C-alpha cells in the first residue's frame, strides 16, 4: 500500500505550491519530519515561512502538491487535534478582552462539544499546561497585561493543552525575556523526549544550531534541507538570504 510509506512521517509535504491571487508565495516545497525531530525553518522576510505554516495548518489552500500528516489528510489531522500552532506575538491582538485561562482553554475546543463546555479532563489539561509554562499566578490576567514572554508562554500552554503531536512555532524566541527563552528551551527538550515533532521559524542562527536536528532553508522554495550540521553552511545561508553573507547577517562568529 502506498500510504504505509507516509506513515513513518509525522509531516510529509510534497511539492507544495501556494499562490495568492496568482502571485507565487511558495513553490515545490518539500518537508519530511519524523516523531521527535525538531526542524528550523529559516529564510528572509517574505521568503514564504508564514506561508509554509499557513499551508501546514490548512489556513491557505495549496495550489499544487500534497500534505500528509501521519499518513492522513490535513483535515483528519485537524479533527484529531494533531497540529498546534503557536503564533508570533505580533500576530495576536493583545488588546482582546481575554485572560490566560480562556486562551489556554481554546486549545481544548477541538475536542469539546459544540457549546465548548469544559469537562473535568479539559480543566485538568488546562491547569497542567499552565503550570508547565509557569503561569499559574496569572490565570485570570488579561493577555493585554502580560509581558511579551508571558504571552508567548500562554500560547505555548494552549498548544500543550491541545496535546498535539506536531507543534508549529512562528518565531518562538522573538521578543521574549531570558527567563522565557530558558523555559522554552527546556520545553523543547521535553517535547522531543515525548516524541513530538517541532517545526519552528527563527531569525536566530544560534538557536538553530542549539536545538534543530534538521534545517529547512527557504527562499520561495527550498534552498536546502537536511541535517543541521550538513546543510547549515555559509554557502547555503548566503543563497537563502539572497546573496548576503552570514558574516554580514549575524556577525563573524556565526
Amino acid at each position, binding site marked *: 500500500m502506498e500510504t504505509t510509506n507516509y506513515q513513518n512521517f509525522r509531516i510529509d509535504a510534497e511539492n507544495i505550491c501556494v499562490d495568492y491571487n496568482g502571485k507565487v508565495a511558495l513553490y515545490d516545497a518539500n518537508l519530511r519530519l519524523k516523531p521527535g525531530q525538531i526542524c528550523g525553518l529559516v529564510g528572509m522576510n517574505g521568503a514564504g515561512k508564514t506561508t509554509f505554516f*499557513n499551508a501546514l495548518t490548512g489556513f491557505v489552500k495549496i495550489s499544487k502538491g500534497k500534505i500528509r500528516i501521519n499518513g492522513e489528510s490535513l483535515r483528519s489531522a*485537524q479533527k484529531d487535534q494533531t497540529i*498546534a500552532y503557536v503564533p508570533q506575538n505580533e500576530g495576536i491582538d493583545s488588546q482582546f*478582552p481575554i485572560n490566560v485561562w480562556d486562551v489556554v482553554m481554546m486549545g481544548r475546543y*477541538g475536542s469539546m462539544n459544540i*457549546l465548548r463546555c469544559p469537562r473535568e479532563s479539559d480543566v485538568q489539561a488546562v491547569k497542567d499546561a499552565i503550570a508547565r509554562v509557569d503561569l499559574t499566578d496569572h490565570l485570570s490576567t488579561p493577555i493585554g497585561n502580560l509581558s511579551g514572554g508571558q504571552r508567548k508562554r500562554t500560547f505555548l500552554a494552549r498548544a500543550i493543552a491541545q496535546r498535539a503531536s506536531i507543534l508549529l512555532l512562528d518565531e518562538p524566541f522573538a521578543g521574549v525575556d531570558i527567563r522565557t527563552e530558558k523555559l522554552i528551551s527546556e520545553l523543547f527538550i521535553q517535547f522531543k523526549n515525548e516524541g513530538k515533532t517541532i517545526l519552528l521559524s527563527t531569525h536566530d542562527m544560534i538557536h538553530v544550531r542549539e536545538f534543530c536536528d534538521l534545517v529547512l532553508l527557504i527562499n520561495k522554495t527550498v534552498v536546502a534541507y537536511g541535517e543541521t550540521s550538513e546543510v547549515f553552511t555559509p554557502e547555503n545561508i548566503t543563497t537563502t538570504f539572497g546573496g548576503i553573507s552570514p558574516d554580514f547577517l549575524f556577525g563573524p562568529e556565526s
Partner: protein
Amino acid sequence: MELCSFLTLDSLIKDPLAHNFMRKALLMSSLVAAVCGFLSSYLTLKGWALMGDAVSHSVMPGVVVAYALGLPFSLGAFIFGVGSVALIGFIKQKSRVKEDTVIGLVFTGFFALGIVLVSKIKSNIDLHSILFGSPLGISLSDVKQTIFISLLVVMLLSIFRKDLMLYCFDPRHAKTVGINVFFLHYLLLTCLSLAAVVGLQSVGIILVVAMLITPGATAYLLTDKFDNMTIISVLSAIISSLIGIYFSFWFDLETGGSIVLAQTFIFLFAFLFAPRYGIFKLKKLFTGYK
C-alpha cells in the same frame, strides 16, 4: 397639586406606557438593541465596524425587491447583505484597490440602487421610514417578524458564542483544531444581515450602523473579559433604547436619532470615566489604582 403629581418621576415613566404604540416601541427597540448589542461585541473585536456599515446599507435594495415580489423583508435583505460582502471580497481579490475603498464603493452602490428602486417601484414603502426607522408605527406582522428574527440571531450567537470568540481572536487556531472557519465567517455575516433587517424598523438603515458599533465599543472600554463585554454591550444598547424612546416621547424628538444619541452619550461617559481605559480613570481617582 395636579401639576406636581404630573411631574413626578413615576408618572413620567408610567404615562407613556398607557399608549399601545409606546409599549410596542419599547419592546421592539429593546429586542433590536439586544440583538445588535450582542453582535456588536463581535464586530468590534473582529474589526468589522465598516463591514457592519456596509451590510446594513446594502440590504436596502433587498428590502425593496422583497417588498415588490411579496417575499419576507428578511430574505431579500439577507441575500443582498451577503451578496455585498461576497462582492467586496471579489473586488478586493481581483483588483489593487484597498479594502476600505472597496467597502465604501460597494455599499454606496447598493444603497443607491435601493433608493432608485424605491422611487421606481410603485409601492407603499416609505423611504423615510427605511432610512430613519419608525419604531412608533410598527405593524403587528413586523412585531412578529422582529421577535422571530431576534430570537433566531440570539440563539445562533449563543450556541456559537465561544467559536465566534475564537474566530475573532485567532482564526488560524480555529482552523488548526478543525473548527469550520468558513461557516463561522458566514454565520457572523448572516447574523449581521438579519440584525440590519430588524434594526431597520427600529432606528432605520443609517442609524442601525450605530447600534452595531457603539455598544460594543462602549463595552470594550469597560472590561477585560469577553463575557462581561457581551453583557455590558447588550445592557448599554437596551438602556439607551429605553432612554432614547422616553426622551423622544417627552420632548417630541426623532426616535431613532434619540436612541443613537443616548448610545453616544453612554460611550462618551465610558470614554471619559471607564475605570481602566477612560481618560480620567475613575478607579484611580478614588483608590489611587493605576
